Structures are given as C-alpha cells and as structure tokens.
C-alpha cells in the first residue's frame, strides 16, 4: 500500500472551520478627537506648526520636523485631486453595480491630504480636478470619517 496515492474519494477529506474572535477600539487621539468633533459640527480643521508654519492634515499635536507645538486652524475642506483609482470590485472581490472612485485629495491651505470616495463618473475624473466634501445631515453625524459622505466636483 502506498500512501502518496491519488485521493480517490474526495468526500472523505475533511476540513475544519474556525473563527478568530477579535474586537478592538481605536481612539482618535488628542488631535484626531478635535478633528472629528469639528467635523460633527460641519467644520474642517488642520494643525499649523507655530514654528515652521507647516499645516498638518489630519491635524497633529506637534510638528514632526521641529517638535514644536501646533495650533488648530480652520480650513474649507475643499481640495484638488492628486490621484485616484476606480474600484469595480468590493472588498470581498464581488463586482460592484456602480464603480467607486477613491481619490487622494490635497486639501486647500494645508500640506496634507485626505483619502475619500469621489462621487463622479470615472471618465470625468482627472488629476487636478477641484472637489468639495458632501457631509451627512447634521443630526446623523457621529464624529467619524463617514460623516463625509463623499467628495464631488465643484
């Protein structure tokens, strides 16, 4: 009897299913908390270094270049598309009915950017396109990044 023979009855082969229990909470941190609370009110903030003037978005509590403190500044939330990708599959690789566009958007008045959904036709999007955010209705905001529904061409 040789045991590296071919498997003749695949129904006799077994597999074992399992689930890994995992639950986590990610707190936004000092600057992130400030940002999401402002977002809930419909405002956008960034953090400006008091020393070198670099403007961080998302906001940070201190500058990573000179380690000095930052101060929060209001920004419009509008910006310019730096790069984008068109997704035709969802995260489980199932085809999407309508393709989704994800863009890196350079925000006006900051040195930072945001990655978010862009509501436009794939053929109309281009690098350098001006876009603005569309927020959820005020009573439905939760202080999360999903409070921004999407960006749209302005």
């Amino acid at each position, binding site marked *: *009897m*040789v*045991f*590296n023979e071919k*498997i003749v009855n695949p129904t*006799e*082969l*077994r*597999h*074992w*299913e*399992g*689930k*890994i*229990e*995992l*639950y*986590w*909470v*990610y*707190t*936004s*941190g*000092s600057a*992130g*908390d400030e940002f*999401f*609370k402002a977002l809930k009110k419909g405002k956008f903030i960034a953090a400006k270094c008091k020393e070198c003037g670099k403007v961080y978005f998302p906001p940070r*509590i*201190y500058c990573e270049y000179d380690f000095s*403190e930052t101060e929060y500044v209001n920004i419009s939330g509008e910006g310019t598309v730096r790069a984008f990708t068109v997704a035709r599959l969802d995260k489980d690789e199932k085809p999407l009915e309508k393709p989704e566009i994800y863009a890196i958007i350079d925000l006006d008045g900051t040195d930072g950017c945001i990655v978010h959904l862009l509501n436009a036709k794939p053929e109309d999007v281009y690098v350098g396109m001006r876009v603005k955010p569309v927020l959820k209705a005020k009573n439905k905001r939760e*202080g*999360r990044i999903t409070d921004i529904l999407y960006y749209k061409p302005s």
Partner: protein
Amino acid sequence: MAVGKKDISCPPEAIGTPIKDEDLKKGKVTYYEDYPDLRYAWTAGQAISRFLNELKKGRLIATKCNECGRIMFPPRIFCELCFKPIDDWVYVKDTGVVQTFSISYIDPDARPLPEPIIVAVIAVDGASPKMGIMHVLGEVKPEDVYIGMKVKAVWKDEEEREGAITDIKYWKPVG
C-alpha cells in the same frame, strides 16, 4: 485602560491623555470600533481526515512505518524520521497513560471557570512511546491526577458523534 500620570519627569505632551471606559460609553471622545469576521478553514489532509472519520465510528486509528517500525498517533501520511510515505493503517486502543497535565482555571477567553478543567497529553496504548494527543480528563479531582495515571476514553453516544475530537467527551481514570 486608564493610564494616569506616573511619578516621572517628562514634558507635558509626553504624559498622554488618560481615557476611561466611561469616556467611550458616554461619547466624550471619538473612537472607532470593529469586530472583524475572521473565519478560516483548515484542511485536514488524508491522515487526519481518516482519523476524524474513524472517531465517528468510535475508533482511534494510527499509521505505521515499516522501516522504523513506529506506530504514529495521531496518524500522519509521512514518516518524518525515515523521510518516506507510511506503509499501513493500524487501530490503537482507547486507553492510555497521562504524560503530562495542566489544571486550567480559565477558559480560552481568560474568564474564570466555575470548575477547573484538567488538560492532559495522553500516550495512547498500542502506539509507539511518546505518541500522544492532548485532551481533557474527567471524573477525577485535580489533586488526584498524576503523571503515569492510566486513563480510558469516554465516548459520546454513537448518534451524537460528528467526526470531531470532541466525540471523546473526556478520559477517565481506570484501575
């Protein structure tokens, strides 16, 4: 969860911002939570598949290598010493000897158990020395367990068996 100010000297921004559970519950701070659905399937392979199917019939099966003469349990399809495919299937007994054991007072999620459980490595009679499986002991108090104790498998009823290692409910002392 809360990490307070320690008795150390550091700049104010390095102290951090302590957060309590209630800050999260009351929505004082923003956060994101998730419960990822991490599922997996482990394919048992030829040897363990047969082992599981035999468990359903109330039997323990091992494999044999004719070159070194070892009877390997749990079964495998390849002899790791002789580096060759195994030669035969053999049944082993559902009795054995405790090789080592541990008394556990907590469950897999680290919650306290009402009664401690005793997990043990059991060398099964009929297999070569040092061939054993890990299982749970029953009908015995933690203080009475010892290395070298003879045990016997207590099986589920035939209709309840599903071809899983839990088809053996536990191992109880004999003799």
